[in-house]
Structures are given as structure tokens and as C-alpha cells.
């Protein structure tokens, strides 16, 4: 093993006494500790990371707690067997309670932003209009959020990807073009990207502008304390205020290490849409209208594999650079469920566990890995009574688990999405298409695929479903009877508890959510900082 020739700015800063970073590793032995601060942030992903910088710059004493480890570019060796156990929730094997949907979520300093595929979209206008209309969230009107989108896009280098898409993404572009369907080039949060294709295993060149390399080091330079490899167990509360938080270091897979007690004026929850409701449920937060953990959304995603005569090499090159919103736009947002089309990176383990079957048939597809092309369809859940979302509950041991039953409404969309992907893949020149479904077989033509898909039973554990976007569960809205938090992120029952991440969304986004989280959290954290420091509202930097 040789060292990387790439500078690891995070490791350098950690080891530099002059930088004076306060980083505590909860998995290391040590005496129990009590810390007082202005704001404690639970979670270090898109919401927690971007909020930290805002709060520290306002001069506040901030403590950030992250359950996962503190890894950086010199640890990112582009190997699935290292990345998944180190950087993901439940070794990238987190699933819904009935095991029907596999959920990719980060668990490391930087959260999912360390391992996401860099796809960057502003919240779609139709989604925001729905929030204003249905949840009274006037401050989420597109024009009022626009300056915050501009701000975070500048901060994180979000720009349209200027290079040619890799072959895997180009199939989506080409197939759509053949069928007269619109597709577009994506924006990505990268600076000086090498176009490697390993974003999902942590960026080895620090090009991805994740929280790990942007706002978190800035906050550490500003005096923030980072407590990693530490799980928050409970938040104590009295009357209408949270008072303190208890956490324990992770020893292996269990929170059995040293204990931490954090007293703070304000508590910002940004642990993601499964862990946030889990923490609130464990802490027995008041929930007078039984909203907590409800309306959790996933963008449940169907998958279609294809074999091309030419090499696709879906493991090489920026993983997501082309998308089509055609099927989001053909019906009203509250009509039959729409879906966004994208292409995922194709690495051996991810491909292996997603393709159905075993034995010779499975091996035969794996042997064609360089010719394998894959599309995914992200169903836009949460805009229709047929799509009320899932529910987070806690197991006997206090760990959170998501129930996400699929309704006929969503299955109808799942079938339509498999049809759409197969047609696009054949239009782009696929020799074979295989919908990922336990009962599917490879098809050699579009009519054959159409017939097969129309007859497939749409059912849990038969149709392959995945999710990389967990949203909701502490949804916002002006009416406490229908929402856990208000539009500014404040908990409806607590004056000093805030939710600044994707769990605040009252529906799914209908696009990869990182930029939606950045913009919402930046604005809400700025308002919190202004309130705490007594300053007039800051202009957007």
C-alpha cells in the first residue's frame, strides 16, 4: 500500500497544532465529559454541515456530534469493501422494515455529502408551489428561496458539468433524443473534478465540495468542537424547552463508550430522516397530533439493466451527469405519480447485489459488466393521498426503523417507470434489457420487454427498489396539527429545538435533495443566528 500523492487538507489540518481544531473521537477511551455550548448540532451531513458554518461565523459556540467516523481523502481508496462499512449507515445495507427497499445513507463526518454522486438541483418550482398551497409555507415560494440557492451554489461550486457524459449517462441522453423526450445536463458540486466515477466511495481528490471539505473545516477553524464516532441517545426536556443531550462513544457497532452530556441553548437536529425521528421518539418528545415519524419519503427507485454491444464502463466517469424530468411533467404534481430518470454508477458490489437471481444467470450478467448499462427512476412520492409515505418507529433497543408500504398508486408508477426505461434503453441501441425484478428475464426487443413488464407482479421483494434520498418524518408546516416543525425549522412544541435537514420536508423533493437541504438550512440557520446574537437580519453573503 502506498500513500496518495494528493494532499489531504483535512488530515493536515487535524495534525497541525496551529489550527487548534477541537476534534474528539468518542470511540477512544477517556473520562466522561460535560460540555456547555450555545448550539449543539446533531449530524454532520448537508443540513448540519452547512448550518455549522453559519452559526460559527455568527460567533456562537457550536458542538457538532456525528455517529460515524472522521475519514478524509487519504482514507478514500475507491474500494467498495472499505467504503460501505466505513462511510454508510448499516454498511450500506440499511433497509425498510420489510426489506423491500435498500437505503443508501451516509454515516461519517460529512454524512451523505461525503458519498453522494454530486447531483445538484434546486427544489423544483412545482414542489415549492405545492408546499405553499398545501402546508402554508409562504417563505418557500421560489422567488424567496432564490437568493439562498444562489448563495449555496457559489459556496459549493455548483455548476453545469461541462464535460461529455460518460457512456452510461449518454445512453439516457441518446435514448430520450431518439424518442423525442427532453433530457438535460446536470449541475454538480465539484471543483477540479478528475472525472473518476468513485464519488460514492468518498472523493479521493477532494474535488467534491462535500461538507467534509468545505463548511466543516471552516467551522473547525472558527472554533467548533467536533465529536465524532458518537451516538446521541436522548435529549432531555422540561416544559417547552430541551435542556441537555446525552451521547455515548461508539465501540464497534454499539454505543458503549464514554459518555457525553451536552448542555446547549439551542438544539439543531440534522441526523437525517430516519435518525431524527428516531432520536425524538427515544426522547419522548411531545407529539400531540401524532405527526412524528409520519410522512417519511424515499423517492423509491426502480432499476432497469441493459446490455450494449459497445463498452459502457459504467464504473468510469462522473456517475450522474444526465437526467430527464419528462415523466415528472406529463401529469399534474398531485396526479398519477411522476418519476425522474437518471443513471447510477455501476461498480461490482452495487451491481451484484442489485441484479436479481443467483448462480449461472447472475454470473452471466456480471461477466458483461463493461457492457452493462443501468437506468433508475426515482418516484416522486408524497403529493397524493395514495402516497402518504412511510413511518419511522423505534425497535426495542431504541434503534430507528422505517416502515414503508407501497400502495397500488405507487406500484402503477413503478410499472410505468420500468416501461419508460426499457423503451429508452432499446431506443439507444440496447441488445437486451432486463427490468430488475425477481420474475423478469432478459428481453431482446422493446415489444418483448413491454409485454413482460405489463405482466410482472408489482409487489414488495419482487420488484427491486432502492433509495438514496430519505426525506420527511419531521415535516414542516404552519399548522401544528399537520406538522412537526414550522417553516423556520423550529419544533412546534419546543422553543429551542430546530430541524435543519431533509427530515423537515413535507413531501419528497422530486430531485436529488442536497441543494434543497443546503438552501433551507442556510436560511434557517441564519435566522437562528440572528435571533441568538440580536443582530438584524444578515444579507446573503
Amino acid at each position, binding site marked *: 500500500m502506498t500513500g496518495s500523492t494528493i494532499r489531504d487538507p483535512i488530515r493536515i489540518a487535524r495534525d497541525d497544532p496551529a489550527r487548534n481544531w477541537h476534534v474528539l473521537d468518542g470511540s477512544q477511551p477517556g473520562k466522561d465529559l460535560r460540555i456547555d455550548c450555545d448550539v449543539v448540532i446533531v449530524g454532520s451531513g448537508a443540513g448540519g454541515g452547512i448550518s455549522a458554518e453559519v452559526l460559527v461565523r455568527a460567533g456562537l459556540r457550536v458542538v457538532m456530534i456525528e455517529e460515524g467516523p472522521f475519514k478524509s481523502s487519504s482514507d478514500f481508496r*475507491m474500494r467498495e469493501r472499505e467504503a460501505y462499512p466505513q462511510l454508510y449507515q448499516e454498511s450500506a445495507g440499511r433497509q425498510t422494515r420489510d426489506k423491500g427497499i435498500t437505503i443508501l445513507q451516509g454515516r461519517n463526518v460529512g454524512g451523505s455529502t461525503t458519498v453522494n454522486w454530486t447531483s445538484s438541483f434546486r427544489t423544483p418550482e412545482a414542489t415549492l408551489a405545492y408546499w405553499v398551497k398545501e402546508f402554508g409555507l409562504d417563505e418557500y415560494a421560489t422567488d424567496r428561496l432564490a437568493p439562498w440557492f444562489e448563495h449555496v451554489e457559489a459556496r459549493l461550486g455548483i455548476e453545469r458539468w461541462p464535460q461529455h457524459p460518460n457512456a452510461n449517462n449518454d445512453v439516457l441522453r441518446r435514448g430520450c433524443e431518439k424518442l423525442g423526450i427532453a433530457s438535460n445536463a446536470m449541475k454538480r458540486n465539484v471543483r477540479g473534478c478528475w472525472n473518476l466515477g468513485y464519488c460514492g466511495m468518498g472523493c479521493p481528490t477532494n474535488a467534491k465540495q462535500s461538507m467534509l471539505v468545505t463548511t466543516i473545516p471552516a467551522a473547525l477553524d472558527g472554533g467548533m468542537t467536533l465529536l465524532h464516532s458518537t451516538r446521541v441517545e436522548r435529549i432531555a426536556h422540561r416544559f417547552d424547552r430541551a435542556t441537555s443531550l446525552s451521547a455515548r462513544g461508539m465501540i464497534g457497532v454499539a454505543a458503549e463508550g464514554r459518555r457525553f452530556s451536552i448542555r446547549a441553548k439551542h438544539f439543531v437536529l440534522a441526523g437525517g430522516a430516519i435518525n431524527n425521528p428516531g432520536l425524538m421518539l427515544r426522547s419522548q418528545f411531545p407529539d400531540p397530533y401524532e405527526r412524528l415519524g409520519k410522512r417519511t419519503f424515499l423517492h423509491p427507485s426502480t432499476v432497469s439493466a441493459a446490455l450494449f454491444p459497445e463498452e459502457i464502463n459504467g464504473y468510469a466517469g462522473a456517475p450522474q451527469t444526465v437526467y430527464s424530468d419528462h415523466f415528472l411533467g406529463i401529469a399534474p404534481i398531485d396526479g398519477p405519480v411522476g418519476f425522474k430518470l437518471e443513471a447510477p454508477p455501476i461498480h461490482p458490489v452495487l451491481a451484484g447485489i442489485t441484479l436479481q437471481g443467483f448462480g449461472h444467470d447472475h454470473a452471466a450478467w456480471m461477466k458483461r459488466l463493461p457492457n452493462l448499462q443501468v437506468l433508475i427512476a426515482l418516484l416522486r412520492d408524497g403529493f397524493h393521498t395514495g402516497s402518504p409515505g412511510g413511518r419511522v418507529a423505534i425497535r426495542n433497543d431504541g434503534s430507528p426503523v422505517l416502515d414503508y408500504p407501497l400502495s397500488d398508486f405507487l406500484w402503477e408508477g413503478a410499472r410505468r417507470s420500468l416501461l419508460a426505461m426499457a423503451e429508452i434503453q432499446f431506443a439507444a441501441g440496447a441488445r437486451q434489457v432486463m427490468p430488475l425484478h425477481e420474475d423478469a428475464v432478459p428481453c431482446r426487443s422493446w415489444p418483448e420487454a413491454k409485454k413482460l413488464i405489463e405482466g410482472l407482479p408489482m409487489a414488495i421483494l419482487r420488484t427491486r427498489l432502492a433509495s438514496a434520498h430519505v426525506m420527511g418524518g419531521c415535516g414542516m408546516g404552519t399548522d401544528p396539527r399537520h406538522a412537526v416543525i414550522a417553516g423556520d425549522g423550529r419544533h412546534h412544541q419546543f422553543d429551542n429545538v430546530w430541524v435543519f435537514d431533509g427530515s423537515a420536508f413535507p413531501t419528497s423533493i422530486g430531485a436529488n435533495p442536497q441543494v434543497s437541504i443546503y438552501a433551507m438550512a442556510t436560511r434557517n440557520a441564519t435566522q437562528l443566528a440572528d435571533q441568538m446574537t440580536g443582530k438584524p437580519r444578515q444579507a446573503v453573503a
Partner: protein
Amino acid sequence: MPLSRREFLQVGLAGATGLALLRYCRLAAAGTAAKPEPSVQWLTARQVEVFGALWPAILADAVTLDAEARAVAGQEIIESIDRALAGLTPAVQQEVQDLLGLLTFGLTKRFVAGISGDWRDASDVDVKAFLERWRNSRFETLQQAYQALVRLTIACWYANPRAWQAIAYPGPPHAAELGAL
């Protein structure tokens, strides 16, 4: 399926009573198990035998190596599965223990899995038939179990650089420069 629906429900796999029973069975099985191989930390010797029988059926010709290299690969697959299971959350580890209890306890192994003798004596045909039965079972729990066993094995093989030549995967790019060798 050797079991009728009624009999199956009486076993109570999906219910709390059933899980308690399986836990008891697992303890009973563990009590008589031989000492585990030193290369595994989480799996018992009896559980190693289950995966030892499963992987050749699940991976089939994905492992295109000569007999000697195949034996090494098999050992690495088991060790990798062992590490993966050790890294699961306690709640999921418990589910896996329940499943492995079902697969190693004589009565359930025979009547739910349909494997009459020891796993190490099961033929490739027997193991494939078992996998297909569970894959297409009308019981959701058995479908879940099938998918867990297959995905775990497949993930642990394709994570191994030994698997990459057969699928023409070149491995990480710029590996020397980026410290990824």
C-alpha cells in the same frame, strides 16, 4: 415446500413466539457446535458450514479459478461474510442469528429449508432447489431470508479483487497515484 401454510404458521416464524423458539433452538444448536475455525469471529462452525454450502451454488461460474485457488476464494468469502455480519447493527445481527438458527437447527433445517442432512453433505442440486424455493416462497419472511443470503454472498465475492478479472472490471483508476493499491 415441505410445510403446509397451517403448519408453517404453527412454527410461528413471523411471530414473537416463533422468534423466541428459534432463539432457544439456536442456543441448543450452539451448545453442541464444534469449535469455530480461528479465521472467523462471529460465525459458529455450524454456521460456517451453511455458507460453505451456499456460496458455490450462489456464485456458480462467477468463481472461475482452479481447484486450489477456489478453495482459497471460498475461505476468503466466508471470512468476508463473517466480517460483514460482525459490522451489522445489533438489531440486524439478531435477525441474522434467527435466520441462521432456522438453517442449523435440525427440525427447521429439514422442514423449513428442506435440507435433510448436514449442510456440508448437501449437493449443489439440493442447495439450488432450496434457494429457488425460498426465492419464490409465498412467505415474505423466506423471500427476505433468500435475498439476505444471496446478497451477502454476492457482495462479499465481488468486493474481492480476485473476482474482478472474470468480470473485466479494471479496479480503481490511478490507483498508484491515489494510494489505492
